[in-house]
C-alpha cells in the first residue's frame, strides 16, 4: 500500500567550525511514502533545513554528510557522483525555498525559467514545445497566460511562489522538498498557496516534505509529522494522533506554546530554557535539561528513536527500552 520514495538510514551531518564540530543532523532515520505530505517541524537551528539540503546533496560547505544512507527510489544518493546528482535534481527531486525572489533569476522571464528547466533535463525538446508546456503549467497554477513573459519583479509574492511550484512540477518530480514555502507570504496569500498546494498534491499524488516552523501550516497540510530537536528526530506519527496525543514531552511543550486564534483556548504554556548549543550538547537525551518528565537515566543515556506504538516513533525513555 505505502511505497517508500525516500528512506533515510542513520543520516548524520557535521559542520566543522573553529570552535568545534556541530552535529547539525544526528542519526536520523525515516521513510517518506509516495503521495504523502510529511511535515518536518522544529525551532530554528534544530536541523530541519540542513536535513532538506542534505537530501538534495546541497549542503553549504563546510557542512558534510558524515554517515548514513539516503535511499531514493532504491538508490543511495550519497554514492552518486556530482553529474548523476545533477540529473536527479529538478527532474526527480525538486526544492521550493522560502524566498522566491532570491531563487528566481531577475533577468529571466517566467517562461524562460520553465523552458530552461525542461531543456536542461531534456535537451531534445524544442524551445516552442517547452514554451507550450510552460504555458500549460502556468495556467494550471492560476496565473494569467499573459503573465508568462513577465519578469519576477513584476509578479506579486504569491505568484512568485506559485512559479516556484511550477518549476518543481515541470518535470513531474517524485519528491518535492518545500523549505518554509509560506514564511515570506502574508496570511491570506499563504492560505491561497496552501489551498493550491493541497489541490496539486491530490491531483498529481505528489510526495512532499514540508519543512516549517509553523505548526499551523503542518496541521493544515501534513499527513504525517516529524518533530526535530537539536538535530535529532524526537517524534514521528500521523498528524491526528500527534496533535491529539503527543508522546514526546518536547512535542507536547511545542504544541502547547503555539498561539491559537480560537477564543476558546486558554493561556499559552511556556517551555522553560532554550535549545542547546550544538557545539556542546548535553549528554543523554538532548531535551532533558528542559524536560518536565526527565528521569535519572535521561541525563546520561540517549534514548533510541523507535516505534513505541504501531505507526508512532519516539525517542524517549518514558516509553521503555
Amino acid at each position: 500500500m505505502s511505497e517508500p520514495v525516500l528512506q533515510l538510514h542513520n543520516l548524520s551531518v557535521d559542520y566543522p567550525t573553529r570552535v568545534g564540530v556541530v552535529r547539525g543532523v544526528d542519526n536520523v532515520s525515516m521513510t517518506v511514502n509516495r503521495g504523502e505530505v510529511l511535515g518536518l517541524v522544529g525551532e530554528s537551528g534544530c536541523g530541519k533545513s540542513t536535513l532538506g539540503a542534505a537530501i538534495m546533496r546541497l549542503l553549504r560547505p563546510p557542512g558534510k554528510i558524515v554517515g548514513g544512507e539516503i535511499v531514493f527510489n532504491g538508490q543511495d544518493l550519497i554514492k552518486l557522483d556530482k553529474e548523476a546528482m545533477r540529473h536527479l535534481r529538478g527532474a526527480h527531486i525538486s526544492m521550493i525555498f522560502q524566498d522566491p525572489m532570491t531563487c528566481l533569476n531577475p533577468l529571466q522571464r517566467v517562461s524562460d525559467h520553465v523552458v530552461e528547466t525542461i531543456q536542461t533535463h531534456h535537451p531534445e525538446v524544442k524551445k516552442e514545445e517547452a514554451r507550450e508546456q510552460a504555458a500549460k503549467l502556468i495556467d494550471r497554477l492560476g496565473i494569467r497566460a499573459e503573465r508568462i513573459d513577465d519578469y519576477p519583479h513584476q509578479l506579486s509574492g504569491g505568484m512568485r511562489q506559485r512559479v516556484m511550484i511550477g518549476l518543481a512540477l515541470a518535470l513531474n518530480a517524485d519528491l518535492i522538498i518545500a523549505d518554509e514555502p509560506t514564511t515570506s507570504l502574508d496570511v491570506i496569500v499563504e492560505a491561497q498557496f496552501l489551498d493550491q498546494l493541497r489541490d496539486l498534491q491530490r491531483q498529481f499524488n505528489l510526495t512532499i516534505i514540508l519543512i516549517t516552523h509553523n505548526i499551523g501550516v503542518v496541521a493544515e497540510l501534513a499527513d504525517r509529522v516529524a518533530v526535530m530537536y537539536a538535530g535529532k528526530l524526537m517524534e514521528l506519527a500521523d498528524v491526528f494522533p500527534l496533535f491529539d496525543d503527543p508522546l514526546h514531552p518536547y512535542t507536547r511543550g511545542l504544541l502547547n506554546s503555539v498561539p491559537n486564534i480560537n477564543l476558546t483556548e486558554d493561556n499559552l504554556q511556556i517551555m522553560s530554557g532554550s535549545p542547546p548549543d550544538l557545539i556542546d550538547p548535553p549528554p543523554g537525551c538532548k531535551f532533558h535539561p528542559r524536560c518536565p518528565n526527565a528521569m535519572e537515566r535521561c541525563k546520561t543515556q540517549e534514548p533510541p528513536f523507535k516505534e513505541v506504538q504501531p505507526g508512532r516513533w519516539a525517542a524517549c525513555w518514558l516509553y521503555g527500552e
Partner: protein
Amino acid sequence: MPDTSDNLIQVQGLKKWFPVQKGFIERLVTRQRQFVHAVDGVDFNIRRGEVFGLAGESGSGKTTTGRLILHLVEPTEGNIIFDGVDMSTLSNEEIRRMRQRMQVIFQDPFASMNPRMKTGDAIGHSLEIFGVAKGEEKRRRVLEMMEHVELTPAHVLYDKFPHQLSGGQRQRVVIARALMLHPDMIVADEPIAMADVSVRAMLLELMVQLKREFNLTYLFITHDLATAKYICDRIAIMYLGLICEMGTLEQVYRNPQHPYTQALLAAVPVPDPHARRTAPMPKGEIPSPITPPPGCRFHPRCPIAQEICSQESPLLQSVPGDEGHLVACHLVK
C-alpha cells in the same frame, strides 16, 4: 477597566503620503506626481493602560501609523494628541523630551542594537542621553531593570555584546532599554515575530507582566492575529492605509463584520488538524497603495461587493447594537 474618557493617544484624520521616486526622464515626461498612500485617514484613540493592537498584512500601513505616533515621520495631514498635547504644535526639542514618555521595540533585536555596545551600556544609554543618571547610579538602575526582564545573571550579561546573547535575550535587552526611562507608552512593532515558538510565549508573558508592573500602555503592531489574541484589549484591522474594523478583541474576533476581517481570521492556520480551513479565500493580493481602488478599497476582492462599494468609500461606523465595535462596510446594517 480603564476609564473610557482617559485617552493617552488620540489620532485624528491621520494621513501619510510618500512621494514616489521616479527616474529623470520620467520626471520630465510626466508632470503628475504620484504618492504611496501609506496611511490614508485613520482615527482611533488609545486609552491609558490598554493594549491596543494594530493588525494587517504587509502594506496595510500599520508600521507607518506606529512611526507617525512616535513622530519618527511627519504626518501629511491629521493630528496626534499625546496626553492632551497636540504633537504638531511642539518644537523639536519638546518632541525629543516627549520621547522619554514614548518608547519603541522593533522586530529585529539584532538590527536595533549597536554590535559594539555592551548590553548594560545599551540598556543604560538613554539615562545618559537624557541626563538622568550615569556611572554607578546608571549601573545600579540597569542591573535592577535586567532583573525585571529576567536577563539573569544580570552582572554577567551586563558586559556581553549582542552577538553573545540568544535571540530571546536580545529582545529582552531591547525591552529593558525601552523601559529605562519609565515611559507611559510603548510602541511594539512586531516585537516577537522573529522569535521561535517557545521563546515567543515567554516574551508575550513578559510583556504582559511588565505592563502591569510599570503601568504601561502598548500599541502592539502585528501581522499575526493569533499572537494578538494573547495580549490585546482592543484591536484595529487595517487594509491599504485605512481601518476597516475596530473594537474589543472579543467583538472583532467573535463577531467580525467586515468581509476582510472575516477572511483574515479564517486564513490563520490553526494548530489543530481537526480544524482544517474550508472557507474559500478572497482572490488576489493587496493592491498597490499608489493607486488604491476607488470606493471601498477591498471591493475588488470582496465576495459580497455591490455596486455602491466601487463608488463610495464607506465610513467607519458603529455596528448597530454593539457599542464600541466599528466597521467600514456599506453592507453592515
